[in-house]
C-alpha cells in the first residue's frame, strides 16, 4: 500500500474526521474545508462517509477502525501525519476524544474550539462562548474547530476517489479498561426536531419547566417544534433530546424563535442558517439578539402568557 501522506509537502493542513457507521462527525466537512479539502476519514464504514463531504474535499484518505480507544487510535495515526499542520478535527464528541491524544503523541500544542483557523493562527472561544481569543502557534499544531462555525461552500468539482490507508491494528490491551457495550441512536423525538422547519426554543431566561411546557404548546399552535439550550435540558426543564447545539441536535429550521437564550456558540452553531429569527431577551447586546431579524427586549416570563393568549393557547 502506498503512503500518500508522505508524498505531500510539509506544513500542509489535514483534517482528521472521525466516522461512525458511515457518517462523518458533525463539523467534518468544515474541518475538511478548513484544511484546504484534504481529509482523513477514520472509523467504521469510513469510505461511505466520503459521500457527505462531496464538494468540500480534493483529497481523501480513509482508514477503517473499530473499537473505542482514542489513545491507541492516536498512536496508530501519529506516524503517518509527518509534519502535516495544522491537523484539524471537529470539536464533536469523538473529535474532542481524539484530538488531545494526537497532540500528546505528536508533542504539539493543542488549540481547542476554534471558530477560525489559518496557518499558524486560530481564533477560539472560551467562557461558554462569550469571549474569543486570537491564538498563534509557531510550529505544527492540532486544532479542533467548533462544528458550524465556519460553514462550507461546496464546489461542484469532480469528487476525488478516496485512497485507503491501512493502519497498524492499534495495540489495545487484552481486556479493555473501558468497553463500548452499545451505541444508542438518538430518540425519535430528536429526529422530529432535526427535521423541523419551525422551532420555538427556550433558554435559561424562561425560568422553569412550566414556561417550557407553555412554550411547547405555543409551538404546537405555530406548527413549530420545541427546542432548548443545554442549560435548560440539564436543569431538567424539558427532555434532553430537545437540546439544540453542537452537542445536541443540529437543526436547520427556516423560523427560529428564541426566548431567554444568550446565543452561546455551542448553541448557535447547531442552528443552521434560519431565514427568520426572533429573539426575546432582557439583554439587548447578547449574541442571540445580534442574530435576530426581530429582537425584542422584554421579560420572556411575562411575554409567554401574553403570546399564548394571542395565539389562542391556554396560558
Amino acid at each position, binding site marked *: 500500500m502506498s503512503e500518500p501522506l508522505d508524498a505531500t509537502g510539509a506544513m500542509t493542513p489535514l483534517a482528521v474526521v472521525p466516522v461512525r457507521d458511515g457518517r462523518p462527525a458533525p463539523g467534518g466537512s468544515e474541518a475538511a474545508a478548513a484544511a484546504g479539502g484534504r481529509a482523513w476519514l477514520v472509523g467504521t464504514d469510513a469510505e461511505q462517509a466520503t459521500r457527505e463531504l462531496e464538494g468540500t474535499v480534493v483529497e481523501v484518505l480513509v482508514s477503517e477502525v473499530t473499537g473505542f480507544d482514542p489513545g491507541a487510535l492516536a498512536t496508530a495515526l501519529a506516524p503517518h501525519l509527518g509534519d502535516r499542520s495544522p491537523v484539524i478535527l471537529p470539536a464533536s464528541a469523538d473529535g474532542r476524544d481524539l484530538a488531545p491524544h494526537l497532540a*500528546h503523541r505528536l508533542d504539539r500544542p493543542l488549540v481547542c474550539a476554534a471558530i477560525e483557523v489559518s496557518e499558524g493562527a486560530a481564533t477560539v472561544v472560551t*467562557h461558554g462562548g462569550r469571549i474569543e481569543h486570537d491564538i*498563534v502557534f509557531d510550529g505544527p499544531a492540532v486544532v479542533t474547530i467548533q462544528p458550524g462555525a465556519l460553514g462550507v461552500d461546496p464546489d461542484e468539482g469532480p469528487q476525488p476517489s478516496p485512497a485507503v490507508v491501512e493502519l497498524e491494528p492499534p495495540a489495545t490491551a487484552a481486556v479493555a479498561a473501558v468497553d463500548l457495550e452499545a451505541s444508542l441512536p438518538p430518540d425519535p423525538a430528536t429526529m422530529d426536531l432535526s427535521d423541523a422547519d419551525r422551532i420555538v426554543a427556550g433558554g435559561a431566561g424562561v425560568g422553569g419547566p412550566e414556561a417550557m411546557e407553555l412554550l411547547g404548546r405555543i409551538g404546537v399552535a*405555530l*406548527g413549530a417544534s420545541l427546542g432548548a439550550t443545554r442549560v435548560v435540558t440539564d436543569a431538567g426543564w424539558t427532555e434532553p433530546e430537545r437540546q439544540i447545539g453542537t452537542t445536541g441536535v443540529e437543526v436547520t429550521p427556516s423560523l427560529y424563535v428564541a426566548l431567554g437564550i444568550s446565543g452561546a456558540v455551542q448553541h448557535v452553531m447547531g442552528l443552521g442558517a434560519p431565514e427568520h429569527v426572533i429573539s426575546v431577551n432582557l439583554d439587548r447586546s447578547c449574541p442571540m439578539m445580534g442574530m435576530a431579524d426581530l429582537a*425584542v427586549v422584554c421579560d420572556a416570563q411575562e411575554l409567554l402568557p401574553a403570546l399564548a393568549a394571542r395565539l389562542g393557547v391556554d396560558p
Partner: protein
Amino acid sequence: MIAVCMKSVARRVEVDALDATVRADPTSWGPSAADEAALEVALRIAQVGIAEVVADDVIAVCAGPDRADAMLRTALACGATRAVRVDLAADADSTVVAAALAAVVAGCDLVICGDHSLDRGSGSVPALVAAELGVAQALGCVAVAAAPDGLAAARRTDRGGRDLLRIGGPAVISVEGPVARLRRAGVPPLLESMDAAVEVTFPEPARRPHARVVASRPYRPRPRWHRAPDPAAPPLRRILDLTEAMTERTPPRLLELAAGPAADAIVAQLGDWGYLTAAGNDVVPTESRSVE
C-alpha cells in the same frame, strides 16, 4: 484509590462588552457543577467499593493558585481523604495543567473529572491526563452507576446519541454537572476541615508545547455564510447576489416593549412572514378568541 480533579473557577463573571475584560465576582470562586458532580461520583463509588478497582480513598486534586484551598477543604469535609494542590498559575495551558495533575494522580484506579471547565471549557484536560497516564477514558458521561462488579456509564455522542460503556480498569472519566448533586458536609467534618492541611506540591516546570493568546474580544456571531455567486452571471447580478441587495429580507429591528405589545409585535411579524397561515395550521390570532 480514586482521584478527583477539581478546578476552582469564578462561577459569576462579567465580560466587558467592549474589550472582553473578565471581571470575576470574588465571592464566586469554587468548583463548577460538573466538578462537584465528579466529587460526588467518586465518593459514591468509594462507598460502594467496586471490584478490583478501588480502595475507599478519595483524593481531591487541583492545579492552581492558593484560592483553591477553600474548595479543597470543602472536598475534605464532604468525605475526600486527601487534598492536594499543585501550585500553578491560573492561566497555565491545558497541556501543562494535565501534566501537573497526572504527576499527582498516577497510580490511581480511577480519575474522575468534570466534563468541561467554566472558563476554558474545552474539556481537553481529562483526555490529556489520560494520554499522560496512558490509560483509557470515558468522557462526557451523562450517567454513571457503580455496582460491585464494575462501573456502567452513558456518554453523550454526536447528534443526540449515547454510548453505553462498561468501565473495568484504570481510566479517566469525565461527568456532566447533572450526573450527581454533591452531598452537604456535616457540621463536625466541616469544622475539622477548617484547620486541615492541603498538601501543596510544586511541579517541575513542565515543558509542553503550547500556543499563545495574542488578542481577546467579546464573541460576536460571524455573518451568515453565503453561497458563492454563479461565476457565469453578469457582474451586476453577482454583486447583487453577494450583497443580497435584492433578496427580500426584513431589516433587523430592536424593540423594547412590555409583554402585551411585545406579543403583538411578534404575532404581527410572524404574520408578515407568512407563518400564521401556512398549510397545516390554522392559527387565527385574534383578541376575540377565548383565552379562558
